[in-house]
């Protein structure tokens, strides 16, 4: 028994667990110190959590695109962040046009509907074109080939947008209706954050119903389960893949609009870091798992907004906010090492698809 255990526990595993323990101790120590020092009033923590939920729901929407594509094709659609960025750009252009004519403030609901519609359409189109032009011919190629293609497509899209629309950071207009705060359960929430959270929840529910209840959604699940069997059952696999890209793209487009509403700036690299973080969220929740993407997104959003002050601040690291991106990536690495299955989900990272 002990011998078998000894054979399974190699030096690497022990080293990994020691690293894990050190990190865990650091996290707990940091959190306790910064809470005990009472450097920030409780209100700050609440605000940070609300902000974390808002950005987390954006991550969740993007993560769904990664997760659904991974579930169906077993490939990381590296260019998905750029699909999201396209949504943010289109949203910006429509919003600016509406803002200039004064329509945005007069007919807020109609304007937002137009913005979302435009952004989602364009993003979905780009996602479908990507699949058609760049990924479909490579479906049976060695695994690295489509990944490299996706990386290429990602840079191509980024710099195409830069060429088209310039490299400056564009300020997303703010509607009158979104200024100020509302109070829910005694907590003051910025109206933009409330809009983001509500919109994300509506879309997540809609997607959940689509995937679970409709015939197309079930067909998509079947294809992600087993492509060959699904096609024997009379499901058009190519069509399901296109629909997956379409839905994922539309959600990313919506996420683009929400992201720019939240941060109020858009530029050609907008998609890169959120794209990586959304991928992290997808892995965190368990890639290939739709509910997991939502959980992972929220977890990452909250962790990212809370941890720099809570943990790094407590450890006495100056300017902890600079390290929030590094923290997100560190989380990704740690999850892949210690729990490759994610919070919910099957083990895929070491399994051959």
């Amino acid at each position, binding site marked *: 028994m002990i011998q078998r255990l000894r054979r399974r526990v190699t030096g690497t595993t022990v080293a990994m667990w020691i690293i894990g323990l050190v990190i865990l101790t650091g996290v707990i120590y940091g959190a306790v110190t910064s809470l005990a020092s009472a450097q920030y009033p409780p209100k700050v923590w609440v605000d940070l959590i609300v902000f974390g939920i808002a950005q987390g729901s954006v991550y969740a929407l993007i993560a769904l695109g990664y997760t659904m594509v991974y579930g169906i094709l077993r490939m990381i659609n590296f260019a998905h962040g750029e699909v999201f960025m396209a949504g943010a750009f289109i949203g910006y252009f429509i919003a600016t046009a509406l803002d200039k004519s004064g329509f945005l403030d007069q007919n807020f609901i109609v304007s937002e509907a137009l913005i979302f519609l435009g952004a989602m359409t364009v993003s979905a189109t780009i996602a479908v074109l990507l699949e058609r032009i760049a990924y479909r*011919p490579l479906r049976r190629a060695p695994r690295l*080939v489509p990944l490299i293609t996706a*990386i*290429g497509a990602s840079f191509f899209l980024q710099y195409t947008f*830069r060429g*088209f629309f310039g490299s400056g950071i564009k300020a997303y207009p703010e509607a009158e209706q979104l200024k100020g705060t509302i109070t829910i359960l005694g907590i003051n929430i910025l109206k933009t954050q409330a809009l983001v959270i509500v919109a994300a929840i509506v879309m997540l529910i809609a997607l959940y119903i689509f995937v679970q209840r409709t015939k197309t959604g079930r067909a998509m699940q079947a294809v992600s389960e087993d492509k060959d069997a699904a096609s024997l059952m009379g499901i058009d696999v190519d069509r399901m893949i296109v629909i997956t890209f379409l839905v994922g793209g539309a959600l990313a487009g919506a996420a683009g609009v929400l992201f720019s509403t939240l941060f109020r700036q858009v530029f050609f690299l907008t998609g890169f870091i959120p794209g990586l973080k959304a991928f992290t969220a997808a*892995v965190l929740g368990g890639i290939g798992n739709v509910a997991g993407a939502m959980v992972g997104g929220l977890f990452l959003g909250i962790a990212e907004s809370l941890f720099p002050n809570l943990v790094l601040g407590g450890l006495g690291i100056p*300017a902890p906010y*600079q390290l929030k991106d590094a923290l997100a990536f560190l989380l990704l690495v740690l999850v892949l090492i210690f729990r490759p299955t994610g919070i919910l989900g099957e083990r895929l990272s070491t399994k051959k698809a």
Partner: protein
Amino acid sequence: MAATTASLSMNAKPANRWSSPIKVGLLGGTVAIYLSLVGILTALANRAVITGVISLGQVILLGVYVMFGYMAAQRAAAGQDKAPVAWCLVSGALAGLITSVFLVALVVIAPLINLRSIFINASPELWDLLTFGLGVPAGLLVLLVVGLVVGALSAGLFLLPNRIRRSVGLGLAAIPIVSILNSSLFAGRGLSPIGALVTFVVATVIAYLWQPARSVVSQRVGALPTKQQRVVVTAAYIALGVFVLLLPLLGPYPAEILDTVGIYVLMGLGLNIVVGFAGLLDLGYVAFFAIGAYTVGVLTSPEIQWLGVHLTWWEALPFAVLVGTLAGVILGIPVLQMRGDYLAIVTLGFGEIIRLIFLSDWLKPWLGGSNGITRIPRAIKATEGGLSDQQILFYVILAGILIAIFVATRLKYSRLGRNWMAVREDEDVAQAMGIDLVKTKLAAFATGAAFSALSGAIFASKLTSIYPHSFNLLVSINVLAVIIVGGLGSIPGVIVGALVLVGLPELLREFAEYRLLVYGAVLVFMMLKRPEGLVPEARRKLELHEEQGSLAE
């Protein structure tokens, strides 16, 4: 592949024979509008290819016509024993005309709907370029005629016999290339019309004569006894070596470009081991580059006081390589248990973490934060009246490249190299054959990291100052593009890839903004059309064709 050809031949039915050139024309029009609005044409409009006659922007526009006119002719002749001459010409002309119609529509409509408020490049300069400076009605007519004529001419090019077609094509391509080299390195302006004509004629004639001569030469050499053959090959290598040694003498500016290319070759050789030999897609390669550069910086710069050590560059070099290798092992252990695409993302994450840590205020007292480290000594100081710093550095880089080529070649044909290839092809089978996966992968990762750190050390000496911003993800992507374009696993491919992807853009400074756009497009294109690269490695080509074979079944 098979499916696309089938659908093409279906379109070529006589009933709708017009649809093929029209489709090509629509594609051409889309590409032309894309290039116009993305700004490439205007960015290159100030670079004269033939002074006073044509700019590089216009040459690229003509290139679009040539490409699609040629393509239309190709499709018109598809599936027929003898190309129908008239129909090919008509197809080419039609495709060119449709492309022009798109551009005309753009020029006419854009000002009406104030396109410039969205697309920043929809500017008067663009209209000027597209109408050849002749203004709206006249220029548009010229544009249509140019489309028609160039389309038909390129279709005509397709109809020429092989040998002449290749020679003329090379001759035409030689004009912008010679002009760019000339204006970037020496004269600062384009060729004169006579110069262009001479270039064209000389290049065409050389190409024409060289084509049969090449096979004769290789035949004659092949007929020699083995010993003499070896002498010929050695002589060729020596000639090449002397040529390379003389290159930096062109001047300090060409030497600087060569240095940049050289650093990329060195990094490419290292990444080639990781990605090309062992099949591990490492997107965090820049991390080791940064670690190498920072190690040298910390050990040599008089600015860094906390360590109390101020070595020379040469003394610091082994430490840089050592630290880089160690970092490769330490980062490698956790990530190498993952497969393909996860590995890519995790290494990317590591690369960003390293950069963000170098950038943060947290380690500022030790690593300089956003101010970086300055006053790093050069490898060899330039002496008064001798070669410049950049010229000397080239020889240092060259030495590094030679070592890297030697190591990479030896490793490739060693037991370890064969293990790498086995792991690349199928991990499970490799493991079943008794290969220790983690050790094998770790060896690749660490060797790659060592080369990356070496390049980082040289980079630090080249610039004498380093900032965290120099070490972003784009460096990893550039190196990846270099080795993919050259051919994964192929050592000469790395050099070709670096010359094409790093050397050319360095010559064309105004093109810098579009470098990554082109890299992205090139990556996609290469993966779709020529995954084995420009200078393919024999073994890998075989693997990829095996894949295609199974696809065709």
